[in-house]
């Protein structure tokens, strides 16, 4: 394929990862931190950036590991363990680098990084990437798009929840109940983007 064709494809992959196939709203990945950290826009932003960064990084890393280590050795079934170890190592490494060179960034992102290691969105994105057999460029744009989509969703959610605080909500619905209903409505809206992709 020529260069422009590949770029277009990468763009499509990123767009669909962020909107029509949003990992949170349509693939249900990363729900735990989404439900617990979406009370304030400020913390949601921090977590969102951390997710974008780690997701893209680990997608690249895991792509290389899978392609150049696991496939040649016929050890594809070990990918679960290896991906988790790579993700943990990557997060640890980033944490150390940030602490050493950028204290400001470390203060903003630092507390979220360990949280992310167990985030299913990170492992999920790597597994999806393997299943769909992406090329390197597509893997990178998939990671970026997924992270962006996740951040978009959690930001929107945090904004809505801040507005929702003074409202009177039925008792049993408070907390996770109402959040889930809002997520459902958001998912509906995001699925609406499907037309853009197939029509364009």
């Amino acid at each position, binding site marked *: 394929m020529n260069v422009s064709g590949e770029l277009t494809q990468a763009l499509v992959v990123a767009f669909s990862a962020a909107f029509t196939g949003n990992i949170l709203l349509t693939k249900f*990945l990363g729900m735990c931190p989404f439900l617990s950290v979406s009370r304030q826009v400020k913390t949601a932003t921090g977590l969102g950036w951390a997710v974008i960064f780690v997701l893209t990084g680990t997608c690249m890393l895991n792509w290389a590991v899978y392609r150049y280590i696991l496939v040649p050795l016929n050890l594809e079934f070990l990918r679960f363990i290896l991906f988790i170890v790579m993700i943990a190592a990557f997060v640890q490494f980033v944490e150390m680098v940030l602490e050493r060179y950028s204290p400001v960034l470390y203060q903003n992102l630092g507390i979220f990084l360990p949280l992310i290691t*167990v985030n299913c969105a990170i492992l999920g994105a790597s597994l999806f990437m393997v299943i769909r057999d992406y090329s390197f460029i597509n893997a990178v744009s998939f990671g970026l798009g997924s992270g962006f989509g996740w951040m978009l969703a959690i930001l929107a959610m945090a904004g809505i929840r801040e507005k929702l605080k003074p409202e009177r909500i039925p008792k049993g619905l408070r907390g996770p109940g109402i959040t889930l209903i809002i997520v459902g409505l958001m*998912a509906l809206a995001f699925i609406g983007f499907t037309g853009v992709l197939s029509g364009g």
Partner: protein
Amino acid sequence: MNGTGQKRNSAKALAMEGLWDNNPIFRQVLGICSTLAVTNMVLNTLVMCVALVVTLSLSSMSISLLRKGTPRNIRMMVETLIIAFYVIVVDILLKAYWPEMSQNLGPYVGLIITNCIVMGRAEACATSQPPFTALVDGFFNGLGYGAVLLLIAVPRELLGMGTLLGHAMPYFSGPHWDKWIIMVMPPGAFFMLATAVWIFRSIQGDKQKEGAK
């Protein structure tokens, strides 16, 4: 967590706790990440539940067996590896004997590893209890979790496709029933789960009030 693993030791108490009182999804709203995605079909959900129950109970038992020999600071890593081991076994078995199902479930079997419930039970119970207690605890937590998933999956498939386990249901697949396609799409899962959490919390809230009086 509300003092898990202190006084209750009998299997019955454990069962009650895992299935109802402290049901992982309703009470703790944990671990819905990886499994909600497969609730659009009852069959997929059943297979996923079996996979989860097997992994959860066996890994709880193994972690409990090894709890005395595991250094505290690398505990998490060991737990993750044990869980991953069982997940890989389940994944390979599925691939070998039921390839279509393995394809349907996609990456979600692998995502059991990062399911917070498995890790949560390992931390809360398996590291402090004898192997049998951990096994029972894992088994019923997995079952409680599976029950909720089925509760979500049955209406979704019935209303959305008019079928159950792939068989056409009398009224719902007929011409009088306008299929609710939305139910088999992702938003349907969120709405169903929200409804289930709402009902459960209302019932439990009433009970707690009575207890306080």
